[in-house]
């Protein structure tokens, strides 16, 4: 197993390099010179040139990229061109905030999606299945920015049950942290639940029609044993794929949800840094996002191996 993991980790390197290089080039093609943004209107050309030199912007793009990469390998992602703060600790702090939201959203998604998918499959074509599928379709189709706004209007503005937006660190006040967490987690978790339900239902239906399921029933196994031990475990492989991808997306930070709920995570930081052309922060955020996504994919593949010994590497 270890050589397999090592091989997969090595395979990530060119992918990461390609993503980083693409973002590096594309971001610098966006109109808006950060040096000029810092200096304001009609800057003195000498001052502009001096600042561009200080920021390393006068060097050729490949040189800039490889210098950045060299420093990144040493764990130095540079300093924010806007706020003069070191990027690495900033990203670490924001990643943890996003991680909390991602885990909560995924938890809500699984809490609703897995039972709904199982019930819907087991009671195929019943009214329960019909209602679950309709709700799932709606949940899957609703844009999360609209859902987020709706949830805020109902639960915060109308009923005043939960704060509309904000964040308090769990180390500072866990109770407040959870109050702020609930609405964004639900907003992100519901579409996840809908997607999981649909995948799990389809996968379960496929498994339930297999011969070995008939054998299991013929052996006199109970319904719950058949569903949980035989059907669910096999149906989990495609489900795991979608969940892994969902986790990757969530950990990259949701720009929209984090903004709607003032959740100061990686997504909002990335968006804000793009608007002010804070190259170093964006580049660091892309590195974190891409790495997390690739690792999530690796974990999914390892999950396959756990669930299905047939594909275990020799």
């Amino acid at each position, binding site marked *: 197993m270890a050589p397999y993991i090592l091989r997969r980790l090595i395979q990530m390197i060119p992918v990461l390099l390609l993503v980083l290089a693409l973002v590096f080039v594309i971001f610098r093609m*966006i*109109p*808006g*010179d950060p*040096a*000029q*943004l*810092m*200096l*304001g*209107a*009609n*800057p*003195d050309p*000498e*001052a502009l040139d*001096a*600042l561009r*030199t*200080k920021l390393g912007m006068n060097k050729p793009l490949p040189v800039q990229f490889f210098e950045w990469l060299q420093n990144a390998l040493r764990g130095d992602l540079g300093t*924010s061109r*806007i*706020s*003069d*703060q070191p990027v690495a600790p*900033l990203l670490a*702090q*924001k990643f943890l905030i996003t991680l909390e939201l991602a885990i909560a959203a995924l938890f809500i998604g699984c809490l609703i999606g897995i039972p709904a998918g199982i019930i819907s499959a087991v009671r195929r074509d019943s009214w329960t299945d019909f209602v679950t599928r309709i709700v799932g379709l709606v949940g899957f189709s609703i844009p999360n920015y609209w859902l987020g*706004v709706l949830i*805020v209007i109902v639960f*915060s*503005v109308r009923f*005043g049950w939960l*704060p*509309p*937006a*904000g*964040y308090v660190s769990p180390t500072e006040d866990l109770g407040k942290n959870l109050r702020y967490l609930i609405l964004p987690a639900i907003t992100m978790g519901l579409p996840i639940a809908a997607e999981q339900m649909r995948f799990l239902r389809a996968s379960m239906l496929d498994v339930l029609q297999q011969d070995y399921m008939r054998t299991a029933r013929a052996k006199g196994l109970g319904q719950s044993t058949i569903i949980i031990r035989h059907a669910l475990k096999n149906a989990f492989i495609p489900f795991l794929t979608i969940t892994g991808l969902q986790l990757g997306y969530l950990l990259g930070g949701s720009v929209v949800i984090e*903004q*709607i*709920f*003032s959740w*100061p995570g990686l997504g*909002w*930081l990335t*968006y*804000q840094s793009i*608007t*002010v*052309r804070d190259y170093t922060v964006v580049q660091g955020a892309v590195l974190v996002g891409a790495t997390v996504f690739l690792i999530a994919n690796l974990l999914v593949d390892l999950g396959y191996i756990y669930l299905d010994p047939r594909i275990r590497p020799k």
Partner: protein
Amino acid sequence: MTYPQMTRRAVLASGGTLAGVAALGSLGGGIRTTRAAQDDAPVAGGSLTSTLNVGDISGFLTWQASTGSDSAAWTAIFDTLVEYDQDYNITGGIFESWTSDDAQTWTFAVRQGVTWHDGVPLVAQDVIDYFETIMAPDSGAGSEKVATIDGATYEAPDDATVVLTLAAPNAALLDDFSSHWLSRTRDLDPAHPIGTGPFTFVEWERNLHIEYAKNPTYWKPGLPYLDALTLRLVPDQDQAINLLTTGEVDAIASVDFPKVQSLSSNASVQLIQVPEQYRLAYHYLLTRTDTAPWDNALVRQALNHAVDREGMLAATLGNGSVRSNPVATGSWAFNPDAPSYNQRDLETAKQLMAEAGYAEGETAFSTTLKYWREWSQMPQIAQIVQANLAEIGIEVELQLLEIGQWVDAVQNDLDYEMALTALVPRWDPSDQLGNAYKTDDGAALLWNNPDFDAAFAAGVATAEQEQRQAAYFDCQQIALSECPGTVLNEAPIFSAAAANVRDLRLHNRSFLVYTECWIAS
């Protein structure tokens, strides 16, 4: 939305960046101004949570170009070299007093008894260090701040005096200094800024909040009233309004005009505006005056007569005021006799177009208008301009750009025919007029008029207000006859606060000042 205030001339804006006004009044609901009556005595204590304009600040390097959010965050920690009072008269800040006979050599008395937040006394050398930082070639200092002292010599003959000799007389120096927040640059730690201002820095967590505590040794007696101040960083204005109406925050820096009506009927909220005579922000239409057809003053005058400013006022739901002069009506330099285009005059516009050689009833020419939409009224204003100009035969194609693209296209590349933006100049008339018409204050306009330049230079070169007024009257007469750029009404700016918030001042440069704010029981 925070977008940087990329240029003073061009965009002020940055995404709804404008802050609102000050909060006053003892009862909730309704629109108030900073001048509203305050009968009850201030009460010390308590804390206030306010949002900034949308988005985060750019840091605490106060010599760099600033957004409205930066200004609010900096004003809590730092003092400016001089200040404006609520009647927009210059008053002492770090500089307690000053003398100058010729507006070129200035002697400033540094306020005594002031200490930095770490207890170190403020001395004149701190100001010299700040000037040195600005002038360092790679400091990243904002071009406006560099321009203030560019070519000047400065010295501190003793701990209480700064002598500044400018390269040329500048009567607007004090106005410039009202935007210089003094930080101690010799041992600056951007993560833990130290100032002399009303609040001490506690924490800045990016995209979350900035926290401050009361400075118990602040040099203004009895101030600040608040024990603690938190500036919440929110990315969206609707969210800020939700936070205010649910009691999560006590004040919000800006309220877009479509939300004004619903908030004004909320008894627990007070809406605030700067008194009309002191308002600075306006929408501004640039025209390329160096190439046809906008190089023809008759066409530009026709444009000014053709646009329906009353209609634009309706587009902002009656918020703001009709305006065609860049100088605020409350300024001593406002010329009431300068040409005004406040009333639409379509017949005169058509006549001017005919004089310019464009036959009535035919398409005169086609042109493009580039605009950004970080302020919600911008699309409507662009559309009204388009419709109005169609009536005098000018076909306008609207081009919506992201704000960074707009700056690049219009300001840097001069790739435009017409361009719509918004300006928030400083209070001195040199800045109000310079922002609008001076080419060396913004290269995009490309208008050169020796008579205007001479009058403008005369206004800056003397400290005598009567002479300055006469010069600026001339400037308005010339510019509003030639119409190199077009003022399209005041840009309405609001902020809001909970009903029990008092004396939260909105500066007319669109940021909230918390120094005198207090919470009523």
